[in-house]
């Protein structure tokens, strides 16, 4: 009996520390800056425990019953804490508010536990022995938890299941207390039912936990996540580190605001600046509006059509204050028409003709995307170009995926284009490749619009030189009935990623 009671102390001490560690770890995963996160979480938590201890003096009657209730609450809130935080991070705003709120609640509950337990045990031990034993076990529990957490729990169970497991332990303590203190409980049935219900809920949580961690992929990002949304088409995440904003689609980096101008200036201007009479431009993909922003630097352009699959993407980049500041409000310009559609069938259905087309699709890492890099697609694209029209295609890295890059070049050739391959260094991406497709002999432009940060006429010419390690390799053409590109791409990126 005595040992069981002291075991309770040990266990609830461990639970208390685990919740604290989980909150700290989650905060540093999701928000970054672990020193700041751990310090503030521990501080808040200890402060809340103090509040709990102070509050304990207002509990005067039915100590055992109150203790059981507190255990159950701690088990429930603590057990689901990481679940709630993960989901909130993914689906709701005000993550920090919730984080510290939860830490406060759990801290208060945990702070109530030991004083109450000591008062319950007061009649059975003398004070000297009681204080010594309870506090010893309290600190021992904390030691056990702090060793268990990094060595076993995080690697084996993960944060969601670890929290649930310790919630179960809290609830377990409540449950066995209903047996040990049977005589002291007026509302035995109610307390026992409640205990079973909490145990049941936490067990269900364990069953579900796999789904929860799958959706909460946000833990992948080391920077501050400031925006996250799942659409039917993809998962968008925007992170921030100091003044660097990054967009990830399905975990793949799309741009970093520190250097995206290098990418987008290179994508747009070599082609566009060489078409002084161009009136109509088309952007396929590129729902972030960055390519459109560059196109808007040409007053002669009368219309810019952007076709992107995902309405959420184009909407957010048109209205979200931060996101639209990144593309300088390009998507709300009156010359710009945004169409949400699937590029290949859209091109098949339209009879519009364009002077300049920017093709800015995600890299061809699956067969669905691979269709947008086939000779059939380029042939179709050519039918929508005016006689002098040009097309500029983002075409992955000639450094990391050299075969893939030259495969795109060859495929555009097979689609009937004269090709002008070029490349740019974009620090966050590495060496990046583009292909300009024309229907005639083409020469780089003599002038560029004002206000470019990266390109000038001299640097632009140098982009068309390929050093030997990026130069052409023997490749096949990517066709709908034989998508070699997806195989090249898969093989090449697998070689350089761990």
């Amino acid at each position, binding site marked *: 009996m005595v040992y069981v009671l002291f075991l309770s102390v040990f266990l609830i001490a461990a639970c208390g520390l685990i919740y604290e560690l989980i909150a700290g770890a989650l905060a540093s995963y999701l928000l970054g800056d672990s020193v700041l996160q751990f310090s503030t979480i521990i501080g808040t938590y200890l402060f809340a425990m103090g509040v709990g201890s102070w509050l304990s003096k207002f509990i005067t009657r039915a100590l055992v019953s109150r203790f059981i209730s507190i255990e159950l609450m701690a088990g429930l809130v603590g057990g689901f804490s990481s679940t709630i935080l993960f989901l909130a991070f993914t689906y709701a705003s005000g993550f920090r508010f919730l984080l510290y709120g939860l830490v406060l609640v759990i801290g208060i509950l945990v702070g109530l536990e030991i004083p109450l337990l000591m008062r319950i045990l007061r009649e059975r031990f003398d004070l000297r022995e009681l204080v010594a034993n309870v506090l010893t076990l309290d600190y021992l529990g904390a030691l056990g938890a702090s060793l268990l957490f990094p060595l076993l729990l995080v690697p084996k169970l993960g944060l969601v299941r670890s929290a649930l497991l310790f919630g179960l332990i809290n609830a377990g303590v409540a449950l066995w207390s209903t047996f040990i203190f049977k005589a002291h409980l007026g509302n035995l049935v109610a307390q026992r039912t409640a205990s079973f219900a909490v145990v*049941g*809920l936490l*067990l*269900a*949580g364990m*069953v*579900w936990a796999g789904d929860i961690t799958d959706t909460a992929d946000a833990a992948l990002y080391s920077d501050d996540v400031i925006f996250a949304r799942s659409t*039917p*088409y993809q998962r968008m995440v925007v992170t921030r580190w100091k003044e660097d904003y990054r967009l990830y689609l399905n975990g793949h980096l799309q741009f970093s605001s520190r250097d995206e101008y290098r990418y987008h200036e290179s994508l747009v201007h070599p082609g566009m600046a060489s078409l002084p009479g161009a009136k109509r431009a088309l952007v396929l993909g590129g729902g972030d509006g960055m390519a459109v922003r560059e196109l808007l630097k040409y007053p002669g352009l009368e219309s810019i059509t952007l076709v992107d*699959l995902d309405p959420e993407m184009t909407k957010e980049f048109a209205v979200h204050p931060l996101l639209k500041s990144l593309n300088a409000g390009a998507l709300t310009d009156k010359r710009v028409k945004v169409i949400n559609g*699937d*590029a*290949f*069938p859209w091109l*098949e259905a339209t009879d519009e003709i364009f002077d300049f087309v920017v093709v800015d699709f995600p890299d061809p890492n*699956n*067969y*669905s*995307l*691979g*269709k*947008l890099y*086939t*000779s*059939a*697609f380029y042939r179709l694209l050519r039918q929508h170009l005016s006689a002098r029209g040009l097309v500029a295609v983002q075409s992955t890295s000639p450094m990391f995926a050299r075969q893939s890059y030259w495969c795109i070049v060859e495929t555009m050739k097979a689609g009937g284009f004269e090709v002008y391959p070029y490349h740019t260094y974009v620090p966050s991406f590495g060496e990046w490749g583009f292909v300009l497709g024309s229907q005639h002999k083409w020469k780089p432009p003599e002038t560029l619009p004002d206000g470019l940060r990266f390109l000038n006429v001299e640097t632009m010419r140098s982009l068309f030189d390929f050093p030997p390690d990026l130069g052409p390799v023997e490749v096949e053409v990517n*066709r*709908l*009935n*034989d*998508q070699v590109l*997806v195989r090249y791409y898969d093989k090449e990126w697998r070689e350089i990623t761990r």
Partner: protein
Amino acid sequence: MKLTRRALAPALLGMTLKGAPRIEGGFALENVEQGHLLRDRARLMVPRESERVPVVIVGGGVAGLSAAWWLDRRGFKDFVLLEMENGAGGNARSGENEVSAYPWAAHYVPVPDPEAVLVRELFTELGVLRDGVWDERWLCHSPKERLFIHGRWEEGVEPHSALTGEELRQMERFAHRMEEFRATGRFTVPMERGLAKSTEAERALDRMTMGQWMEREGLTSVPVRWLADYSTRDDYGTRVDDISAWAGVHYFAGRQPEEKGPLTWPEGNAWVTKRLSEKLRTRIRTNAMVFRVERAGARWQVFTEGRRYEADCVIWAAPTWLASWVVEPAPPRWPMDTAPWLVSNLTLERWPANKGYPECWDNVIYRSPSLGYVIATHQNVARHQEKTVWTHYWALADGRGADQRRILLGGDWNYWSERVLTDLERAHPDIRQCVSRIDMHRIAHAMPRPAPGMIFDERRRARLRPKDGFAYANCDLSALSLFEEAQYRGVEAAKYAMGQVGRGR
């Protein structure tokens, strides 16, 4: 949703109640009764009207349409094509719903080799072959085929992973032997070209079953037997132990494609037959069941309920076996059995979870009794497809065709949809959550089943020689249910008919 006590327990544990949504559907294109009128020699109305037409084509499948196409292309317009259904196409018909068009049976044409001049002529006319280049839009897109084996999808239909050394050697030896057969040049499409060069070796092959041949070759391991059996069920609706080894070999050794194919369309080969029917529409009479064809002097009288046709020449493009019930004087019974098939088009509101290699055009489940499914939306170029239609193929290949037909027609829609779902569940445990409709077509006589001896059978070869202005044209003459064979037979019959009529004038 009604909450039962059994459902409540998991609900309390926090699991969601996933009652499978209701699946709608039914049988399509059923015309069994009308066909049986012929079998039972029912008394049908003798028509009052009559029409004089030099050439009558009976049957509007690929053979009949090809005969018509060839006549039309050569400037011969004096013919009619009589089709008993309300549309031409035969085994190459299709359906369509708000998600996609889908095939009701034949769904691809292998890329023809340079010698298949007729197929090339047709596809040049249809714009699929231009200046010697096949339009990649109509070639089967990547990724092409996969096999569900060892609990996951793997690339390709041939089992290749986790085989023992002996199993692997047998697979290789099988492939090697087929390569040798191909090199003989005696297995061709159309088959008649290669058959003419046959030696005793080919005759011997035709005398045994594919199973016996494999046994003799020491090809007895499970994976290689499965591959051969899958293939004979696929092309002949027949098990490896019931089929002529010549036919079994032909499946593997018959073609040498020059391009990664095959040619395929969401609606299957109906893409071709619709274009042909459209072009020939003034000469196609639908809902015109021919119930009697009889010799009258130097001419033929062809009876439908609406009209009697007087023709110099009849091209019999309907199934060859049917002639014995319709033509007078009745030709001897056709010796070849036919295989019944069940084709199910499943409409999916979402894609089931996928394990392993991504969704392909052709998706085969290892050691399943069915032939797997083809994704009708596979040729769609959209990057994002929310819904899809799958065409599930099931050849009822065991034992005699007649017994299997009884099973096929005996099962109602509930029975067959349950069997199809259970079959797919092996690879897609969540399939019931995805499917909203299952439309089925029960084809009682889907394709010829060349049992041993059929290829060199004199009764088969006798039908190849047209006589007295009557020419057979169905692909079952070749014992191969292939588009190219149907086209070849149709055109051969058309050539004969044109010669006859020309001579008569």
